[in-house]
């Protein structure tokens, strides 16, 4: 019997994601062999200790939060190409919203995959071009005139995105929004670990939505 699109997505997805894993490990391995420069366990473990506990946890949280939004194929793709919160997830959400398809539906799966793939290809090409043209580009991108524009890329992105989602679902949005604004006002240093707060916001939103839903207010 012919396997369904969804089942094949899992099979192809696993092949690609595990091959990607091999490719990514090839870089440090080949570097060490070529230069005969194995760093030894100690500095690697010490360095890793500084970042891994947070990164591994955030990685797991990202999988739990973003897989339902993205769908099958785009999850296998987006976790390899990276930059999820600032690029791939908003791209997929915006594409599904414009195409008027629901995440998790068959149509949503297709549109989300096309969006994540397009975004990955365009990003990779732009970065490659940028690396090739680094010498003429650096003074422009590094100039103090342009700097504030890039410093504010996240508010610029999420402002527009918020209008679409918050206006449609303002009842669900109130609780997590108020919580987050108060939290960041009280503890500004949290902005470096916003990734950890995404699931916190999600849990608050889900809790508030559940209560309103039970009471028949949604």
């Amino acid at each position, binding site marked *: 019997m012919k396997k369904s699109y969804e089942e094949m*997505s*899992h099979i192809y997805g696993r092949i690609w994601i595990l091959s*990607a894993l091999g490719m*990514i490990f090839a*870089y*440090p391995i080949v*570097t060490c062999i070529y230069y005969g*420069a194995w760093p030894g366990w100690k*500095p*690697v473990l*010490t*360095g*890793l*200790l*500084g*970042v*891994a506990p947070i*990164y591994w946890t955030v990685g797991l949280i990202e999988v739990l939060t973003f*897989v*339902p*939004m993205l769908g099958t194929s*785009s*999850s296998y793709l987006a*976790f390899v190409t990276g*930059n999820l919160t600032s690029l791939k*997830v908003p791209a997929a959400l*915006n594409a599904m919203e*414009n*195409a008027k398809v629901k995440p*998790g539906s068959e*149509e949503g799966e297709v549109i989300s*995959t*096309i969006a994540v*793939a397009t*975004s*990955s*290809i*365009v*990003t990779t090409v*732009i970065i*490659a071009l940028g690396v090739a043209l*680094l010498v003429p580009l650096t003074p422009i991108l590094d100039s103090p005139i342009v700097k*504030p524009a890039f*410093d*504010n*890329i996240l*508010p*610029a992105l999420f402002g*527009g995105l918020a209008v679409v*989602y918050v206006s449609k*679902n303002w009842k669900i*949005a109130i609780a997590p929004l108020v*919580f*987050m604004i108060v939290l*960041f006002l009280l503890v500004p240093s949290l902005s470096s670990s*916003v990734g950890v707060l995404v699931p916190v*916001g999600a849990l608050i*939103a*889900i809790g508030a*939505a559940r209560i309103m839903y039970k009471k028949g207010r949604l």
Partner: protein
Amino acid sequence: MKFNPNSTILFVLAAAVIVFVIAQSVFFMVRAYRHGKEIGIDPAQMKKTIVSTAIFTVAPALSILLGVITLSKFLGLPLPWLRLSVIGAITYELPAATSTASAFGISLSETVSDPKVYSAIAWVMTLGIFPGLIWVPLFIKKIQGGLMKIKNKDGKWGDILMTSLFLGMISAFLGMVFADIRIGLAGWIPIFVLLFSALVMGICGILIKKCNMKWLETYALPISMLGAMIFAAVITPLIGG
């Protein structure tokens, strides 16, 4: 072998991985497009998705490129190019590099010249982020199975649950914008930018609905984002951020 963080072999290695990732993207894109046609999605809609996503991606991609430039001062070009094109993000890679350099008792103030320091940094970056690639194949079926159960039990609640997930994410980022307001007016700049972006998006929404400008839908998010970025570049020198 004399070590150089910009050597040809490192460029070739990075390029090989990046080409692989592009191939993966093309593979899934073609598959999704064909399947979309099979299940009756209008090809025009899929093309629109490609165009609007491509435009939307330009500004964030340039901001990632800025990250490559920042890291290249310490690590040469190939490693940052690879890390930020594939799985990484500047917010991960810079602390990983700093943490490793401090394990050697050095600070990242100039280009790394010791191959051992360099390879240790490459290892920490790789080991620091690779679990994401294992969690996905390990958990994806369980997560989706759980969601399906919820949806089959109560379809309406399933939809509300998904919406709540998005709103949770958006709330975290909206909240973050308020982090700096205690430093004075300059700390308000991100809020002004956010509001400006929201305003442009709102105007786009009105034009789409009231003036029937359907074509604008494709460009509304990139327009509000770029507009707000330009706004940031204009008001920052005025406010003195």
